[in-house]
């Protein structure tokens, strides 16, 4: 069976009058297996959206090849577009139509039934807003409607381009549950995001993208493991004597100020057991390395979402 997506050496350069030449996509290759939840993570302007638009078939690359479900996305064929669902960054709706009319129109375009449209509204939690005009929906509701439109054709492969951008934390969590459910149904999901925690929470594998290039691809856990970074354990000051602190640090880095003591350890289990037996767990915080540290490590630059 073909991979869901195979991308080889994509390149796209924009020539702006003021900006000069910008290599938006600079030699990008990756492969997404069927059923996978794949994330493309990077700061704004990293080239995520351009890459996605080329893969979807909205833009043509200067060079490189794309295979979607074993076929080229260009020229457009209804056979392929019928199997792929897309949510774009801007919510593209027919003006002055209600949520229900919107999803029905998209259902008809994908050759799906009316009931399928209603089911999708239900799935994204918009059933009670079916009669509300699209422009009157909140940002999160618009994103969910746009995802419903992407799903209405029962696609095997779903592209989501920064679906949670500009949403409040609660709306973002709700959307995460929805995306997990979509993937759990067996659909391949490709997500772009500039939120570290989102990629960590959702993706099977993540491609870290910066300045038009994919710097590394791995699972979030694999990235962190490969980093071999210490775990930072913090407790409130005043529970341990200076001697005991040095003893517990066992030669690894430690820092103390008036309010906290911070250990950096590669054996957090041993340290935590010792702290517990000392009864010194007040103000405890444990922070393992995350994708933010990975980004710093991979690109040599501080994360700037």
């Amino acid at each position, binding site marked *: 069976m073909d991979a869901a997506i195979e991308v080889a050496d994509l390149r796209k350069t924009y020539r702006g009058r003021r900006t000069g030449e910008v290599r938006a996509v600079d030699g990008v290759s990756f492969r997404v297996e069927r059923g996978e939840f794949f994330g493309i993570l990077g700061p704004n302007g990293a080239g995520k959206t351009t890459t996605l638009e080329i893969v979807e078939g909205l833009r043509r690359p200067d060079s490189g090849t794309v295979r979607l479900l074993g076929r080229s996305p260009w020229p457009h064929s209804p056979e392929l577009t019928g199997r792929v669902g897309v949510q*774009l960054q801007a919510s593209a709706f027919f003006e002055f139509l209600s949520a229900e009319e919107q999803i029905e129109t998209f259902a008809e*375009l994908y050759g799906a039934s009316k009931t399928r449209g209603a089911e999708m509204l239900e799935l994204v939690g918009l059933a009670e807003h079916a009669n509300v005009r699209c422009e009157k929906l909140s940002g999160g509701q618009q994103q969910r409607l746009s995802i419903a439109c992407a799903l209405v054709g029962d696609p095997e492969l779903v592209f989501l381009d920064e679906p949670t951008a500009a949403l409040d934390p609660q709306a973002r969590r709700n959307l995460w549950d929805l995306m997990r459910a979509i993937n759990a149904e067996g659909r391949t999901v490709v997500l772009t995001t500039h939120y570290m925690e989102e990629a960590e929470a959702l993706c099977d594998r993540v491609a870290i993208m910066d300045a038009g290039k994919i710097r590394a691809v791995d699972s979030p856990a694999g990235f962190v493991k490969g980093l071999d970074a210490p775990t930072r354990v913090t407790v409130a000051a005043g529970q341990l004597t200076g001697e005991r602190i040095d003893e517990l640090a066992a030669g690894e880095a430690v820092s103390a100020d008036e309010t906290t003591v911070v250990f950096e350890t590669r054996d957090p289990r041993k340290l935590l057991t010792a702290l517990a037996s000392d009864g010194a767990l007040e103000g405890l915080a444990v922070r393992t390395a995350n994708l933010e540290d990975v980004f710093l490590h991979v690109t040599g630059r501080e994360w700037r979402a």
Partner: protein
Amino acid sequence: MARMSLDTETIPDTAPPKGRAFLSLFKALGRGWLRDRSQVFFTILLPLMFMVLLSSVFGSTGDSASRILAVGDVPVLEGADADDFDVASAPDLDKALALLREGEADAAVVQDGDTVLVYPSPTSSTSGAIAAGNLSALVDDVNVEVLSAAAPGEPVLRTEVEEADGGSLRPIQYLAPGILAWGIAISGVFGAAGTIVDWKRDKLLRRLRLTPASVSTFLGAKVSVNLVVAIAQTAVFLAVAALGFGLELSAWTWFAAPLVLLGTLAFLAIGVVIGGIAKTSPGAAGLSNLVTMPMAFISGAFFPLALSPEWVQTLSYLSPMRYLNEALQSVVVYGEPPTAVLPQIGFLAVFAAVVALISWKTFKFDEL
């Protein structure tokens, strides 16, 4: 689940038939149009408002009697027909001239023995001239009577005024085709330009390109909505003009439909060019105005081209509105058969084709 067993390359035929996609797009876009109050206003109500305004402006002169101020005793006015003259008296000439300046009367008259002195209005020269003309005609009539009585049997010449077209070409007959052509022009240009700018903003076309329906189906549906709107606009406009303003419709009026459709295509093409240039909605509206206003002024839609300077008449050959206006006037008002407007049809068709080609070549599809 069915999709889990998709390892054999059986491709499900998910594409809906073209006709069904067209119908659903037509329905979605048509609904959107009907719910957009500003579109409905610009297309249906604005031309009707123009008709009310212009027909009252142009209709107020000509019909009414000349308002005459008789200073002192003016015997010649005794034989005046009340339909032609509305006579009031003024105590003295100074008072009468003051009233003339305020626009209270069209002319003042003083009779000094055999001499009738006429003071036409300085404020409204047209109605003043008409009043003066009416007065000298009245004096002539009186003279003829006097002469005929003095020399019976001697033949005298008389003038009879007969209105052109049997008196049917009242202002509405002239104005209605022009206002309709203008209405078709603005809804085509503004509609297309605004739509393109909206698409640039909300990326709807981009999203639709990724559905199994083709872009050409979508564009076809959009143009079809505009064509249906143009027909509805024409029907409403002509009905109001006929029933409310006394426009007399010829037997060939139905031929306005294909003319309006052809005109709409030409104006949509202009709008697409503007929409390709403009970045924002106000920009699109401004540019549309910049194009439609001069086009309307040089088209002869609102005042006869014969009254315009030579260079305006020459330029008017470039205005598609001129041809739409002429063709509509010929078939709707004068009742000429469609063969009489073949040159106008030919120009509109060529114009639409050329502008459509320009818009196709200059349009940056990447922006959508």
